[in-house]
């Protein structure tokens, strides 16, 4: 890295350098510091001023977006009716527990065999601290939260063709990668090899920072010793009394880490949505849906499959049939319609909207994802491996193993997220298998990381999102081009119809997107109602 330039380091070049040295997430962090990254747009509980004067609204879909809208509109005096395809509320805000049945498209039926109080979230499972909308509803509705562990330094990074196939503790890989990079960079800086406009003063600071960041010794070396073991852990931890002396551990060879590509996952916990603190509802994600149902459950008509949405100058009329039988058509009418039906389903419904919204509805394919919950007869990850919550990442087709972030140290059974893949060939390939084979594969792959799978696995349940009858996919998979061309048309109120859901947000696949889109839609709708 020699060069002749002497100009002071520009912001862009500094960012680029941080990106090269510390990875994209460090660069992203720096960008956040510089105020270049986005922040939440939630501004506290919505205030809808003005009297709706008896206006009525029919809300289609009782997922998070629909529930938020119903809750807010009902409390300020709207006449609210809701139609929901399922026999429960929540949509993708969904948890499966022992005894629950899930029948997927194609007819395979699974009955969840989990023990009492154990659950698995086939949909969203974490809520970042800055998703202020969904968190505020948890607070207002009394949904108890507990920490979701994204980064567990004692969980594993695993690559099939590295380290002899043996999973590596995150603390080892992270400390060693960081230390080795810091050592290299410190060498370059101290020998003026960067030859770049870091001033003499900044050079000293940078060297000090690298020492601190990488746990380097006074000679800027990263090597076995107390300093590095204070990061990566010891060969033998310090103990008490006689023979309690710590034995430092030996860092992994840097070249082996590089070739393993497990560094690919090192920055995950630094991604904005994955930064601490992250939450999960105590007892399952659907506790949020249940809390809404306690407030406004009486407004929901379940098992209602919408077949047509028609509007004229004065009303919206929705036709629906019994979702279980396909028969007994009925209609509801209202002044307005808030439709949260996923676009993958809405694009097949007889819908009375103009070409711009219709084209937008047709422009968004639905992404693939698969998630598998596995019950084991004991919490071996805690008992044998001291892994309390968090996620192991692997390049096996299961991608990740999520340990329960609750009931630590309890004896007896536990449920692990045995696979979570999305937007990848693996997601389709898991979905294409019969559920029983999905489980078999997840157990076979997982056993390569935890041999205890072979003896302790009991049962599981596997959800391939393209097989979920009420959404036909996992999330609205916008492209930048499609968003440019269609997004505003999807958001616009068409006559008396407005759409909401994660697909009408800039946070696709997150519940916060559903909340914010719903609040935005009802704000605009309400302004129109009050003005009319």
């Amino acid at each position, binding site marked *: 890295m020699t060069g002749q330039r002497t100009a002071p380091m520009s912001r862009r070049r500094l960012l680029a350098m941080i990106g090269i040295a510390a990875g994209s997430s460090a660069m992203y962090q720096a960008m956040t510091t510089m105020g270049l990254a986005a922040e939440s747009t939630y501004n506290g509980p919505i205030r809808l001023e003005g009297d709706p004067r008896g206006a009525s609204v029919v809300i289609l879909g009782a997922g998070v977006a629909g529930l938020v809208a119903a809750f807010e509109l009902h409390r300020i005096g709207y006449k609210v009716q809701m139609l929901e395809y399922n026999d429960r509320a929540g949509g993708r805000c969904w948890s499966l527990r022992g005894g629950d049945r899930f029948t997927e*498209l*194609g007819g395979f039926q699974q009955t969840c065999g989990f023990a009492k109080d154990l659950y698995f979230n086939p*949909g969203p499972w*974490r809520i970042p601290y800055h998703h202020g909308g969904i968190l505020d509803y948890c607070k207002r509705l009394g949904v108890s939260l507990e920490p979701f562990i994204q980064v567990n330094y004692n969980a594993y990074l695993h690559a099939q063709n590295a380290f002899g196939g043996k999973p590596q503790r995150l603390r080892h890989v992270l400390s060693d990668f960081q230390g080795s990079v810091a050592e290299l960079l410190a060498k370059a800086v101290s020998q003026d090899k960067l030859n770049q406009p870091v001033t003499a003063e900044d050079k000293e600071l940078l060297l000090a920072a690298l020492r601190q960041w990488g746990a380097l010794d006074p000679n800027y070396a990263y090597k076995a010793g107390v300093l590095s073991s204070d990061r990566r852990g010891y060969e033998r931890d310090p103990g008490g009394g006689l023979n309690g002396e710590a034995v430092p551990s030996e860092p992994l060879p840097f070249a082996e880490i590089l070739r393993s590509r497990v560094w*690919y*996952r090192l*920055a*995950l916990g630094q*991604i*904005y*949505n*994955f930064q601490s603190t992250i939450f999960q509802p105590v007892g399952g994600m659907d506790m949020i849906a249940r809390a809404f149902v306690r407030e406004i459950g009486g407004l929901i008509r379940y098992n209602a*499959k*919408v077949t047509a949405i028609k509007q004229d100058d004065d009303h919206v009329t929705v036709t629906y049939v019994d*979702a279980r039988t396909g028969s007994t058509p009925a209609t509801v009418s209202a002044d307005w319609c808030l439709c949260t039906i996923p*676009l*993958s*389903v809405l*694009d*097949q*419904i007889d819908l009375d909207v103009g070409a711009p919204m219709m084209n937008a509805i*047709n422009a*968004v*394919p*639905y*992404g693939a994802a698969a998630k598998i919950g596995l019950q084991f007869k004991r919490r071996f990850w805690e008992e044998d491996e001291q892994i309390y919550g968090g996620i192991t990442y692997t390049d096996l*087709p299961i*991608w990740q193993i999520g340990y329960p972030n609750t009931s630590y140290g309890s004896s007896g059974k536990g449920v692990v997220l045995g696979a979570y*893949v*999305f*937007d*990848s*060939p*693996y997601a*389709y*390939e898991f979905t*294409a*298998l*019969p559920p029983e*084979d999905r489980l*078999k*594969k997840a157990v*076979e792959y997982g056993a390569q990381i935890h041999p205890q799978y072979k003896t302790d696995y009991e049962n599981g349940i596997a959800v391939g999102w*393209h*097989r979920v*009858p*009420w*959404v*036909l*996919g996992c*999330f609205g*998979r*916008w*492209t*930048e*081009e499609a*968003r440019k061309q269609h997004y505003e048309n999807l958001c616009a109120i068409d006559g008396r119809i407005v759409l909401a859901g994660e697909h009408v947000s800039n946070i*696709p*696949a*997150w519940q916060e997107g559903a909340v914010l889109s719903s609040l935005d839609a009802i704000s605009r709708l309400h302004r129109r109602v009050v003005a009319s």
Partner: protein
Amino acid sequence: MAKTVAAWRHVALAMIVAGSTSAASAQSSDGSFMSSRRFMQRDGEVIYLTVCQSCHMAAAQGAVGAGAYPALANDPKLAVAGYSVLVVANGSKDMPPFGALLDDEQVAAVVNDATRDIGSLQMADNAVAEKSVAAKYSRKSARHVTKVSCRPELNGLTLSFS
């Protein structure tokens, strides 16, 4: 006389199911579960059974829930050279595009597989026609899809997902 697609699928399905009980070794023999970025299956029938089946089902019969997946069996549109290739490569409405996950030969193979018993096209001619169209459109689609904002591994960067 050609078997119907449905009947033929049942035979194929029975073979696959029988094979799959014998462990994960199937993964490397048919190309499935080998890459998180591209489908590695080469055989059209295998691609159908390990990918398309997710939605269109084992006998290409489709399925109905709140919305529906179209049956492919006996759909005459699919026999029009180019149509199926376009749909597979570029997607259609809620169906995702596969042009960035399958190469031209794979698109041609799976389209030929799905349409082999439909219409009156000669299979060999169809294959040639489909392949040339695939070459044209799946590349176009691949360029398009690399810009998807939700891709977890966009340009090697990991993006977040709930």
